[in-house]
């Protein structure tokens, strides 16, 4: 961190010293974790590289991985069966590193069943595949409401399912992580696998929405 000459409390600081303005925004617990980091590194408990490696690991993961799995499953029924019966092996086939997961299960949506995933106890999420979860997934409102009013929660995402579709909520309470395999939207027969992957949003992999209809692809 570089030193800056500025008057403490100078309200013009942010205009010529953006770094200082950023520092002012760091809350108590942010400064706390920076302090912890410096102490652990100085003591040799962790290295700076340990932390950086973990940051890069998470940055490299995104919902695109889930989208690729789903698109392949949509076009290749044998792959779909492998994805459902041995998801970690199916990931390996696609060059997706799922080794960070203890185990995971793929939940197939059908014409009569729609799956939704939550972790009421803390926000567990298939991070090694999808990356970091969205803020709403970690919110108290989602953790509280998804298990007792899943359709009302889905309605907030614009998703409305008929009563003829059974909604199944999965609360990820243990080491198993869940990924939803959304239904292939109608009217997508002529799309390539890559184009199909674009329809598979993160929210459809969690289950709060269905996959996007092709009209939304730009």
């Amino acid at each position, binding site marked *: 961190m570089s030193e800056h000459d500025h008057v403490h409390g100078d309200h013009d600081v942010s205009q010529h010293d953006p770094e200082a303005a950023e520092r002012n925004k760091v809350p108590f617990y*942010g400064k706390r974790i920076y302090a912890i980091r410096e102490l*652990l590194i100085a003591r040799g408990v962790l290295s700076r590289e340990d*932390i950086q490696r973990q940051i890069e690991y998470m940055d490299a993961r995104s919902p695109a991985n889930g989208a690729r799995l789903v698109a392949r499953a949509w076009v290749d029924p044998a792959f779909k069966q492998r994805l459902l019966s041995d998801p970690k092996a199916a990931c390996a086939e696609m060059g997706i590193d799922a080794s960070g997961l203890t185990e995971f299960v793929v939940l197939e949506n059908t014409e009569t069943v729609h799956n939704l995933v939550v972790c009421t106890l803390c926000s567990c999420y298939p991070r090694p595949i999808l990356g*970091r979860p969205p803020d*709403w997934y970690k919110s108290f409102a989602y953790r509280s409401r998804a298990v*007792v009013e899943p359709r009302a929660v889905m309605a907030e995402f614009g998703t409305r399912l008929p009563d003829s579709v059974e909604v199944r909520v999965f609360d990820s309470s243990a080491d198993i992580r869940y990924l939803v395999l959304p239904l292939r939207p109608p009217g997508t027969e002529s799309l390539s696998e890559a184009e199909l992957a674009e329809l598979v949003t993160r929210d459809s992999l969690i289950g709060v929405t269905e996959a996007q209809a092709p009209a939304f692809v730009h």
Partner: protein
Amino acid sequence: MARTHDMGGRPDDAPLNLEEHTLADWEVVADALSVALGTRGLRTTDEHRRAMENMPADDYLALSYYERWVVGTEALLVEKGILTREEIDRKMAEIEATWGVS
């Protein structure tokens, strides 16, 4: 009576806030540091969860997701004798002094 973190079915009329924020640098560090401690075998995921579950209810409800992670991480490091609160306090004060903030 469910413990504070055990939220399934907790009465909650709040609509979801669908806005997503880019993680601040300190949040990225909080996440990575905690997981790195696990990779190094210094803590398990369940110890981390337990440490967060044990914080006072008011704190659990008031703090943000990564603030809770920092509280849990600190509690475990102190419990395991890896760091003390006093040295964390001192280092934090040093950082603030270097930055010219408080």
